[in-house]
């Protein structure tokens, strides 16, 4: 066998992933071929540098998805909408959120995907039909973009597409991206509206609770008489 045909075998030998028989053959060849021995030494040296440079990557940020009432798959929980919602909701500490941070150290991470807050009936509040429609449109656009982008790399193989095709695809991608941006903005606006409404509702409930407590306090205080 020609020495240059051994390229794949060298690395198998280097990483000790060849059979005993192959190992013996290669070792015997290395004993008598100076060129291959030198090549193997170079491969081993490069591998050593590669391994020794494995500086530790900083601890990853953690995923925490706070649990909601009952789990289910997030088929309707589109990523961009979810991210926007999570960012806003985390700020006010409400419901389900996805956030990243870097605790030091962290023993355990809880990850549960909860109910889509929009799709959940919250005390009589129904999902906003506009939001659901926009979210569906967003997912369709996202899928379409994914299909286009996944097609592109395949088309760049041995036979690149005609320039006209390429321009058309790029134009298509640009259009879809613009539509996505519009949907994202609308997504976020609706989500903020929902949060503000929920916040207002919460404040009203607190006010009613305080009022009730005041009445209870008054009626149980012996120094207070009913007129």
């Amino acid at each position, binding site marked *: 066998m020609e020495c240059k045909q051994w390229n794949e075998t060298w690395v198998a030998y280097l990483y000790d992933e060849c059979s005993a028989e192959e190992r013996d053959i290669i070792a015997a060849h290395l004993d008598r071929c100076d060129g291959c021995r030198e090549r193997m030494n170079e491969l081993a*040296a490069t591998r050593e540098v590669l391994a020794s440079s494995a500086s530790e990557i900083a601890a990853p940020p953690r995923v925490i998805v706070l649990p909601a009432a009952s789990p289910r798959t997030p088929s309707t929980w589109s990523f961009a909408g979810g991210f926007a919602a999570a960012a806003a909701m985390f700020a006010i500490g409400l419901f389900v959120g996805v956030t990243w941070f870097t605790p030091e150290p962290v023993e355990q991470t809880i990850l*549960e995907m909860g109910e889509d807050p929009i799709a959940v009936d919250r005390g009589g509040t129904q999902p906003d039909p506009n939001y659901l429609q926009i979210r569906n449109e967003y997912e369709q656009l996202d899928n379409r973009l994914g299909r286009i982008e996944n097609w592109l790399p395949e088309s760049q193989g041995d036979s690149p597409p005609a320039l006209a095709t390429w321009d058309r695809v790029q134009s298509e991608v640009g259009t879809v991206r613009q539509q996505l941006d519009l949907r994202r903005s609308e997504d976020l606006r609706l989500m903020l509206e929902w949060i503000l409404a929920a916040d207002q509702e919460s404040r009203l409930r607190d006010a009613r609770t305080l009022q009730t407590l005041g009445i209870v306090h008054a009626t149980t205080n012996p120094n207070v008489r009913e007129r």
Partner: protein
Amino acid sequence: MSSVTDEELVAAVQSGDMQSLGQLVVRWERPLYRFVSRMVPRSDDARDICQETFLRILKRADRFRAGSRFSTWMYQIALNLCRDRARWRRRWGKIVDDAKEAPTETTASAGPSPEAGTQSNELAQAVRLGLQEIPAEQREVLILKEYEGLKFKEIAEVLSCPESTVKSRMYYGLNGLKNALARQGIR
């Protein structure tokens, strides 16, 4: 050592047990982040990709085939996301130099002296730059092999290509890295 395998946890996720996904995250988030951080130069991209990988695992748990390895599936998902991100950056990103602007955060290597630590960091930086110089398909193999410790057969499964192709890419990748390091004055 945990008694429940990754594949059993995925099966539990398929049946709606979200706690099992939590266990998978705890087991794999560090290796995954390490892998992704070496594939994409920007740390914010690496975070996004890790998050998206776990979300896709959750979303597509029903597509996981019995008899497959979870880690292979996870690396496939992450690798596709890394490729998507790199493609997006090439086409749409207005970033001048990703590697210099937002390098992946690394901790200092535990060395015997500050000088040794500095040298080690410089070497790591040189290798990181060298890896960016070789073709992506060779870089993927080098990282999966050297840093993630996968067998050639497993890498072939992740990349959906023959094992001989993986070995060939490894060979040319090591040679390419050697030349890239030489250009930086290393060996």
